[in-house]
């Protein structure tokens, strides 16, 4: 592994054979990321999980809806590595398939939340005055709303409309992503606003202004990249929170329809059998746990790695 001296970092860059400046930034960032042990191994865990979820159903060819009444609530065995549910459906197949949806919901909701949050935070932080006051008022409004009841009402109202518009599966996916994203952007907005407040007073921003950079350019090119560290952390928290929130919705029966297994849905179905079939809730729960935890660690590592000022 590359040593920690600047000399070897340059050597590494040159070994990559890419003279463009960004290469050294990414090479440097990767080097720093590897120093963060937890993050590094979490990335592996996460990568394996994503691979398993993507490729698993192609390799492990047991149908998610294959009912086997002879093996109802069977504990883990060679035939059913994670056991079966009350209808004798194979849980490994369902966890793998459900992971696709849970992860997709998590990622997509995070993108929505961060996009909205960064935009609102940046505008508020840059404009100050009444625009800032208004945007922060909206943010506080969203923060103070009781989320779960609002989510339930929104989903209840719009589910059928979207279903008829783009089909049941896509419809509910879009709805859930928008609703979760729409209720998770506030922390990112506040973080970005705070960052903008401190960064816009920095000399290098004034220097950019002195070079003739427009307000928009100062925002996008000079302030935003410097404020991304905390945003990345917020983003990873959002992925985790979205996965959990989707689980909650599914657990309450308002997520995806019963025939589509997601991790949350599996937990919902398993809750009545906790005493006689613990394995049923154990594996989806474990999957959520590992995903959320490793995403948090990766976020931690990324924040440290993407800060070029950090010498490691």
């Amino acid at each position, binding site marked *: 592994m590359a040593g920690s001296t600047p000399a070897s970092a340059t050597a590494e860059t040159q070994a990559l054979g890419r003279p463009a400046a960004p290469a*050294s930034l990414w090479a440097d960032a990767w080097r720093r990321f590897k120093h963060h042990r937890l993050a590094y191994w979490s990335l592996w865990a996460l990568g394996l999980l994503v691979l398993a979820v993507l490729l698993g159903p192609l390799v492990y060819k047991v149908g998610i809806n294959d009912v086997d009444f002879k093996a109802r609530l069977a504990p883990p065995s060679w035939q059913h590595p994670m056991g079966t549910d009350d209808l004798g459906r194979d849980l490994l197949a369902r966890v793998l398939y459900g992971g696709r949806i849970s992860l997709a919901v998590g990622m997509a909701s995070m993108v929505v939340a961060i996009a909205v949050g960064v935009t609102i935070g940046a505008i508020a932080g840059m404009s100050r005055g009444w625009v800032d006051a208004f945007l922060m008022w909206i943010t506080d409004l969203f923060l103070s709303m009781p989320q779960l009841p609002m989510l339930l009402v929104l989903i209840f109202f719009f589910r059928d409309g979207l279903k008829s518009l783009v089909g049941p599966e896509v419809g509910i996916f879009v709805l859930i992503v928008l609703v979760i994203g729409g209720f998770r952007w506030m922390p990112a907005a506040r973080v970005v606003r705070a960052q903008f407040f401190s960064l816009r007073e920095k000399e*290098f921003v004034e220097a950019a202004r002195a070079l003739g950079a427009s307000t928009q350019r100062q925002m996008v090119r000079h302030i935003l990249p410097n404020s991304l560290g905390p945003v990345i952390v917020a983003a990873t928290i959002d992925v985790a929170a979205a996965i959990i929130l989707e689980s909650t919705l599914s657990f309450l029966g308002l997520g995806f329809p019963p025939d589509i297994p997601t991790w949350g849905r599996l937990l919902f179905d398993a809750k009545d059998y906790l005493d006689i079939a613990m394995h049923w809730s154990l594996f989806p729960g474990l999957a959520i746990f590992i995903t959320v935890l490793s995403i948090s660690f990766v976020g931690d590592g990324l924040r440290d790695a993407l800060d070029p000022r950090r010498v490691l």
Partner: protein
Amino acid sequence: MALLEIKGLKTHFKTDDGWLHAVDGVDISIDRGETVGVVGESGCGKSVTAKTVMKLIDMPPGKIVAGQVLWKGRDLVPLPPEAMQKIRAKEISIIFQEPMTSLNPVYTVGEQIAESLRLHEGLSRREAMDRAVEMLKLVRIPTPERRVRDYPHQFSGGMRQRVMIAIALACKPQLVIADEPTTALDVTIQAQILDLLQRLKDEMGMAVMLITHAMGVVAEVAQRVVVMYAGKVVEEAPVKALFAHPRHPYTQGLIRSIPRIDLDAQHKVRLEAIPGTVPKLIEPAEGCRFAARCKHARAECRQATPPLREVAPGHRVACILDL
């Protein structure tokens, strides 16, 4: 016509205690290719004057209350922001005091030099990077081809100030405002940077407005000196005349407070200092603002603000006394 002519400029700031008169009626003119030194203690309005010229003052709380900034005859004060953006860096550029924090930590120095070139001259990425290498070579950074890809934290303070100079000069402006360019550097590096600035000025033929509180620096590089005190110009003279016959008590104090090593041990004298500090500039009263610290002050000094009067060709002073 002068390249830059600041006329009766007043920049005030709104504070909780009232309006702060940071710049209060300043006249400075700079000709093409000329180096003008602006000196004075901390807090007497030098930097605010410079930033007003570039219109880098945050408004609010700042406000240009009166005056004109004539750039090649055109007043910059009423200019809209878009028009101002085209002048910054392209025609007038500024070198800031703090090289450690004036560079953006997330971009390579090459990208930062290239930025103004791409903004103002519409160069492609590659052309701009080639020019960035040339600029680094010009400011004497060794192995510029390699260094252009380094980040600011990989440079020392002096090197960063060189990079700042490279950025400021990239678009070949006609006026460079150097706002205490050497204050944050150690003494040996200061001399190098001043040398570099002087040499580049001769090569590129631009005018320089050098803001500093070090009289020694002014003596070395400026042709004309403007002495500022408490938001006003108190004396203006060609550099030789100023050091030979300083007329204003404040200028005399400044010159006397330069440490001297040319006096031998028998003539050793205590280094003089000007007692007191720059007065608060919140809604100041009439009268000479230096009166409170001036050992020659009389009753009439406190009654009316003394105007600048010419005492010799090109030598103007704002003092009612003939010292």
